[in-house]
């Protein structure tokens, strides 16, 4: 077993297939995909709709199980785990960021951020202080008591990022995190994701349609028809903080 020695790659996907059955039809979501992602990397996954990138993200996020092939997350093979075991892995190792933010409407930002801690296997004593720390990391500490409808789209997405961080996950999976945001706010969000990736070393995998958002990642993987068509490392990714500074300059 290779998992005996610590593997440098946090995500190991080998010959992964996912086939959906819709009635009598078989639809291929992923066809024999192999992919390795190193610890601390920032990967953007690109491709048109139906290319299989969302299917891959669902499997990487332990929300779905492959039809065949091997997926090891942090050295642990995910095959054959039960519903509840998968839920525990999601809780402990993975942070999710969604396009639609998916915040609970009737709860405050702080409570939204603390939500994953409520489901932790071992009871967490200081839920509120840890949630507050995560909110500080995304610069929203002063909005802790606000409800989602009192926050802008960008602020809501930052709350969602704080929620993804609160459990100290190994990886953050972001499914079109800027899809519902304007370009300036998108760059703000990218700045936060880049900062967390660089400062905390959190592996980040992001699905996006937009090439200019993908340009902030270190590595771009292109999907088409359930297969990887292109996999390239960016020699010099854009720096979102710097871009943000450029944004503000003309305004002044």
């Amino acid at each position, binding site marked *: 077993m290779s998992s005996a020695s610590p593997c440098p790659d946090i995500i190991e996907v080998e010959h992964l297939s996912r086939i959906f059955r819709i009635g009598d039809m078989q639809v291929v979501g992923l066809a024999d995909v192999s992919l390795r992602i190193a610890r601390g990397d920032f990967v953007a996954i690109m491709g048109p709709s139906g290319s299989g990138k969302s299917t891959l993200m*669902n499997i990487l*996020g332990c*929300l*779905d199980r492959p039809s065949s092939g091997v997926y090891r997350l942090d050295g642990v093979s995910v095959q054959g785990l039960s*519903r*509840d075991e998968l*839920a*525990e892995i*999601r*809780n*402990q190792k993975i942070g*999710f960021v*969604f396009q639609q933010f*998916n915040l*609970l409407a009737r709860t405050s930002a702080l409570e939204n951020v603390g*939500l*994953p801690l409520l*489901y*932790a296997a071992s009871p967490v004593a200081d839920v509120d202080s840890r949630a507050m720390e995560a909110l500080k990391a995304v610069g929203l500490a002063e909005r802790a008591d606000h409800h989602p409808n009192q926050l802008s789209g960008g602020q809501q997405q930052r709350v969602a990022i704080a*929620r993804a961080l609160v*459990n100290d996950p190994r990886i953050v999976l972001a499914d079109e995190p800027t899809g519902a945001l304007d370009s300036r706010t998108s760059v703000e969000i990218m700045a936060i994701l880049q900062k967390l990736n660089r400062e905390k070393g959190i592996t980040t995998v992001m699905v996006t349609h937009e090439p200019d958002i993908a340009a902030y990642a270190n590595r771009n993987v292109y999907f088409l028809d359930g297969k990887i068509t292109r996999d390239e490392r960016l020699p010099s990714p854009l720096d979102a903080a710097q871009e943000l500074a450029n944004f503000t300059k003309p305004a002044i």
Partner: protein
Amino acid sequence: MRSALTMLGIIIGVAAVIAMVAVGAGAESRIREQIASIGSNLIMVLSGSITSSGIRMGTGNAQTLTEEDARAILAECEAASLTAPAVRGGVQVVYGNNNWATQILGTTPEYLPIRDLSMQDGQAFTLADVEGATKVALLGKTVVDNLFYGEAPVGKIIRIKKVPFTVLGVLAPKGQSPTGQDQDDVILMPISTAKKKVIGTSQANAAAVGQILVQARDGRTAEVQTQMSGLLRQRHHLQANEDDDFTVRNMEEVFKAQETSARVMSLLLAAIASVSLVVGGIGIMNIMLVSVTERTKEIGLRQAVGAKTNDILSQFLVEAVTLSVAGGLVGIVLGIGASALISYFAKWSTEVSSGSVLMAFLFSALVGVFFGFYPARKAAYMDPIEALHYE
């Protein structure tokens, strides 16, 4: 608002159960009170049913019992503690310008403790009055109301069949008997007086009486019944093939049957009311299913951040139980209020027992678990990917 409407089913169900059980319990205790008003451990022996020339006469047609029979029962049946012979007759009674048709009852002083009667005013007649056949009378409340119109009756003279009687006392009111008769529409007097001055004596036997009331020692009514039957048959020289010439009525048995039917009635009412609890439960299930569908995305998110099957299940179960228990509590308050209103407006006695309140509360919680389980399970086993992308 929606939760309030959902709870309405449970509220109505619980309130109905409590009110119905209260009405039933009230009816039961009223019957019990009426039995007590007749006198406890009471057995009545009625004269009658002699067969003459093959024709059987009904009960009371012949006065086959005598005052000696009453004394003999007391002497020979060790399970009997008191006996009182009694004769009855309908009379017109006059006081001043007023008159009233009522029943007189000639008896001995033992009649009062046997029937659990007490004096409201004045005093009872004594054995001396019976021996001397003095013209004294004790009036029931109804008689007093219809003759005296607020005047104090004690010491006044009334006339029964033109014979003047001194009112010695007034009986404490007893109300209706279990059979619906007014127990206060009566005049008591010494048995000797009644026979000599009012009803007249039987030509065949001056000591004949219409009935004998017997009080059994605690709970030994059945024993008294058998001992007495044997004694009376012997005293009346009845052959083994002859029918009894008297009828024994154990009043307690008669009214126990009524009590049982009241209990059956209250159970039936509670059963009907609990149907509405079930209907309320279905309402909860309905609203929980709607809630689960509406919150599909939230469920998906909770699953994504690590909620296990049981976490989701218990979240929705707690919600359903909270709804039903809150409804149950409101229903308990309403049920108690409804019982009070029923007894106020319908003049039925109602009794809210803590047992029925507890039962209704537990039942409503159970309804919540039972009808909340299916929606909660549906939520817990959702596919997280579908739930997340549900719009």
